[in-house]
């Protein structure tokens, strides 16, 4: 029974996913069915289950650990899923996305994300990674007639499989080191040889690092990101830019701060370079983009750099900073993609920068919300992004990573420049030609409003979430 308890959130979402699949199967051809609603029920159930499991530290089958850390990420991922479903309900039909498959895949990939955050065995992490990734590959190309989507999906799939192979290789070497794929066994084995780690340990660590770096889109493993983000349907981009990143960062944190903890002095040096490079490439290349989805793809690369900075400075503060950052990045980013999805029409759905011309005059509220999300991503008070960035940099300074913090703050100034380009288009463009924005319903409006409220709430009263994040990391590392 204890075993089932630990996987309860995943179980609930899985059931919801199966229900959506059945619903689609029994749907008459022209019948309209609120399939997304089933997903909402499942995700809310998962959040409730996570709440009940809080502080219980349940263990399932020896490989799933429902500690507060994984529950925190579970809730973040479920919230991302909820926002995605709310936004999707407005655009799925217009974009010509088959809704049954769409919701099913979204929910399954949420299950994968949850599992990734809670697995304590490298093989289970790999399985979770694949559950999540394969669903996302398909979601990227779910508009079969859309050439860009198909191309993006294929690229993502190829590079993704490549990185999975790296990851798997890393697991193999880990097994060679410790005779087990369990993180605790690996940790013991590495701790014993920490004074003089053999080449096997380095290979295991390096290959796993590549696998994770790919999934969080850290430079130089970021190449897939702009193409996949641009080609995927916008709601899917919002989902994968936040959910996949959250899950990958969670697993990254767990593996490197438990199993490879004894070697921290070594991998932080490497990771510091990767993090700085990621911040610089993400922001500098982002400046040159003319497509908003691509721009936000580079922005998400830069944000991966900030998250890595938190992992590097992983004192108690650093770890909770990562969790707080994940949450505040998620609400702002998913909201921004929601707006992009809403202003698209069937013909004009690529998210070009010029599509935003004069949005403030056509749809003032949408423009204001978009500005809120973008300014939060850029790190302006009183939005969540400001506190999140400050918290990460404070952790870095606290641990003595001054260069990292300085590169971080300077690149975040650069990133402000491209967020402002969108703001300029929306608010300051003199071309006031009435922008045609398709109508959207109450669910989407509610979703955007909730995302905006969360953005302000976390920016003005961050203490509660910071406390939760601190509690959730204190239980495991």
């Amino acid at each position: 029974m204890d075993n089932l308890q630990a996987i309860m959130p995943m179980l609930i979402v899985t059931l919801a996913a199966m229900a959506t699949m059945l619903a689609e199967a029994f749907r008459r051809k022209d019948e309209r069915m609120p399939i997304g609603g089933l997903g909402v029920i499942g995700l809310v159930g998962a959040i409730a289950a996570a709440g009940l499991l809080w502080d219980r530290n349940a263990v399932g089958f020896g490989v799933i650990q429902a500690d507060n850390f994984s529950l925190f990420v579970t809730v973040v991922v479920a919230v991302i899923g909820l926002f995605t479903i709310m936004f999707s309900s407005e655009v799925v039909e217009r974009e010509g996305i088959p809704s049954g498959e769409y919701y099913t895949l979204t929910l399954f990939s949420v299950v994968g994300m949850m599992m990734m955050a809670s697995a304590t065995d490298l093989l289970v992490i790999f399985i979770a990674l694949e559950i999540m990734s394969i669903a996302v590959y398909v979601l990227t190309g779910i508009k079969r007639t859309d050439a860009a989507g198909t191309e993006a999906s294929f690229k993502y799939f190829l590079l993704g499989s490549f990185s999975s192979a790296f990851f798997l290789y890393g697991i193999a070497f880990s097994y060679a080191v410790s005779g087990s794929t369990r993180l605790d066994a690996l940790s013991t084995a590495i701790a014993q040889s920490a004074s003089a780690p053999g080449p096997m340990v380095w290979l295991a660590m390096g290959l796993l690092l590549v696998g994770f770096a790919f999934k969080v889109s850290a430079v130089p493993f970021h190449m897939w990101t702009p193409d996949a983000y641009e080609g995927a349907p916008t709601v899917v981009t919002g989902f994968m830019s936040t959910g996949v990143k959250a899950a990958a960062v969670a697993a990254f944190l767990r593996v490197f701060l438990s199993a490879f903890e004894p070697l921290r002095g070594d991998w932080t040096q490497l990771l510091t370079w990767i993090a700085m490079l990621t911040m610089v490439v993400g922001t500098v290349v982002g400046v040159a983009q003319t497509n908003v989805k691509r721009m936000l793809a580079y922005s998400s690369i830069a944000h991966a750099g900030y998250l890595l900075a938190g992992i590097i400075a992983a004192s108690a503060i650093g770890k909770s900073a990562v969790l707080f950052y994940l949450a505040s990045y998620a609400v702002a980013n998913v909201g921004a993609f929601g707006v992009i999805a809403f202003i698209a029409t069937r013909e004009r759905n690529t998210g070009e920068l010029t599509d935003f011309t004069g949005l403030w005059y056509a749809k003032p509220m949408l423009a204001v919300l978009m500005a809120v999300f973008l300014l939060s991503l850029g790190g302006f008070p009183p939005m969540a992004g400001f506190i999140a960035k400050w918290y990460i940099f404070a952790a870095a300074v606290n641990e003595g990573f001054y260069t990292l913090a300085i590169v971080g703050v300077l690149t975040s100034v650069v990133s402000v420049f491209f967020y402002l380009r969108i703001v300029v288009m929306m608010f300051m463009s003199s071309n006031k030609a009435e922008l045609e924005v398709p109508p959207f319903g109450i669910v989407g409006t509610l979703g955007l409003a909730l995302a905006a409220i969360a953005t302000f709430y976390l920016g003005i009263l961050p203490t509660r979430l910071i406390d939760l994040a601190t509690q959730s990391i204190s239980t495991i590392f």
Partner: protein
Amino acid sequence: MALLSFSIFLPTLGALLLALIPNRDGSRDGLIRQLALGISLVAFALTLALWAGFDVNGAEFQFVERTMWIDVFNVEYYIGIDGVSLMLIVLTGFLTPISLLASWGSVTKKVKEFSIFMLVLETAMIGVFSALDVFLFYVFWDAVLIPMYFLIGVWGYDRRIYASIKFLLFTMAGSVLMLVAIILLAVLHQQQTGSYSFDLLELYALQIPAGTANLCFLAFALAFSIKVPLFPLHTWLPDAHVEAPTAGSVILAGVMLKMGTYGLMRFAFPLFPEAATAWAPFIATLAVIGIVYGALVAMVQPDMKKLVAYSSVSHLGFVVLGLCALTVNGVQGAAYQMLNHGISTGGLFLIVGMLSDRRHTRLIAEFGGLKSVMPKLVAAFLIITLSSIAMPGLNGFVGEFLILMGSWRSEVLLPRFTVVAASGVILSAVYMLWMFQRVNYGEVTNPKNETLPDLSVREWCVLAPVVALAVVMGVFPNIFLQPMAPAVERMVQRMERRPAITQVIPQAEAPVAGTQAR
């Protein structure tokens, strides 16, 4: 009663109220204008109430409120004011309704949003002047940027987008390094006492190793110097001023530039007295260059607004010079000059705005002989101009005189600083009076100027308080100097704290990246 918090957040509450009024077609513009003006007048009344309740001989910081905000890092919502911040808050409260009223004629699109941004801006500015928690200060400091960015970018003139982005990026690039320095201070505090602290007064007492103090001072000084702006970091200012709508220029010149000098005075100098003393001559050199350079460039401007903008560079140079003198007179003069500049330059921007509303140009050559066409406006123009060039009997004189006296007697600065700076006084008379003469005297050469209407009642209400204040501040400077005196003296004392730098400080070595694995 939380009077100070109330003064800070009342404008934002008002802005939220305005946001609820539906006004898609602009039919309620009039109502919104009146409401916004009313809210800002109430806010002004609150700032006056602060003044009334302020005890000159009382505690260093008054109206103190503190509650825990983010407990991991011991960040507090900690506010309180001394005489200098009080005066700057009153100045903010004074200029906001005036700029709102001045915009009634010129801002016609998106009036609601304009008013909202102005009110939010007021909250952030008052917050900057009252924060005693360094992190809270940074939050308000950063929060100022967004409304100003929109004010310039949406309601500005032709090159507004370029100007607004330049303004924002310049300021931000300077201030993010300050953020790192702020965090470092809190971390040092933790290493020395065991708990993080962003409390300004506790950080004053911190023993900072000389090298670290030097770097942190530079980070703070860079942020504030860009805001002031100090030569050669001033290039954003002419663009921002010229492209901003009148209200934006008034607030920018009147209040926001003072955030830089206030920051130097409250944070950069007293937090790092040794480093500041060492760097003071260098900063003063830049200030003096700014005084002369700003004046010379102002002289050749064909555009009135640009002329006034460059005159700000020159005038703010005086303020920084006064601060760098580190004498009571110098700092007092600097503090007074901050207020004066707010009044006189604010007034000049208002007048230029009125002329530009009438003629849709700001080129000096387009005007001439206005004295016979609109005598009332020209009379106000004259008084403000004289106040700007420090004519005795008007406000500017008191401030500049104190600054020059203070810097002459300074132990840190050589007398030659004062000598060169004094030439700036003469130069300012040259460029201001020359401009005034070309615009207002002589024959009306341009037929378009013949029928310009004189001040309307609304404009009269805008200018009268400014002119009156310029006179009052010139004749009775003690009303304003007195509340600031204790604060100024404390600041100078803090600077003289200078303990022996050779003293060995018990403190963990700064950890090097990567070796700190725990």
